[in-house]
């Protein structure tokens, strides 16, 4: 079967798709917020973030606010492009 243009198998994994959808809506989100909303364990989320980081779709950074350390995850430009294309491909498949 021919793959629809823009369909990205890396993003299509259910957890990674939801992760990208969350990050697409905001500039960045903390690891804690993502873990709570995805309802997965730390290790599972770390694994999926690593998978997206390897292909350059997300960027991970540490920041400190009021002596609290945050792990910020943000979608890169290529990640945003790939996610948009993937959603476009899904819409094409869904016949919207």
């Amino acid at each position: 079967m021919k793959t629809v243009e823009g369909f990205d198998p890396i993003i299509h994994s259910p957890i990674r798709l939801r992760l990208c959808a969350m990050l697409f809506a905001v500039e960045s989100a903390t690891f804690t917020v993502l873990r709570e909303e995805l309802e997965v364990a730390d290790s599972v989320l770390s694994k999926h973030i690593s998978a997206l980081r390897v292909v350059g779709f997300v960027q991970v950074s540490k920041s400190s606010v009021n002596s609290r350390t945050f792990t910020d995850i943000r979608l890169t430009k290529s990640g945003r492009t790939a996610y948009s294309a993937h959603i476009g491909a899904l819409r094409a498949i869904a016949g919207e």
Partner: protein
Amino acid sequence: MRCRPRGHAAEQETYKLAMTRNLVPKGFPMWKLAASIACMGTNKQPDDPSANEARTAINSASEARDRVVAHARAPWWYFALCGVLCGVIAAAQILPPDISYFAIIVFCLGVVAVGGLYKSLTGITIKIFARSGLPYTISAIAVVYLGIFVSSMAAHSWNSVLVAILASLAVAVAITAGGLRWQRQVASPSPTTFGTT
């Protein structure tokens, strides 16, 4: 006891390869290796999902988006704080130079602090110059500029203090109300979900 390879030809090949390359200890059962490999996933490109699966995936993504933007709910006093900061910069126009410089420093430090405070309160950051937030950001800048302009114009009149106080209050109220409205818009659910058949 030595474990002999059993099962499908592909599994046997994998087992032999793993043994040859010392990837598994001697005598490691093939069924365990097969189970481990099955859990690791595959590099094979999946086929396109069906239309129904695609709809489910889109709905799942929309739901995830709604869940994370629901975090964009800072308490009302956060926006009141932003309003006070902007009011201070408007009032600084009629203050004596020493106090005026101090007010500007307070404003600059305050802007940095409220940026960090938002992340601390909500766990997310949002681009204020993004498409949805741009009208609010431009309006906020315009309101602050107007407040500064009105205060500075009134600086030489007899009732400059009264005008500056009123301008500052107006700026503070407008920024607070605009911030709360922006927050409601950001946190509103997406209209893109649709049912599956």
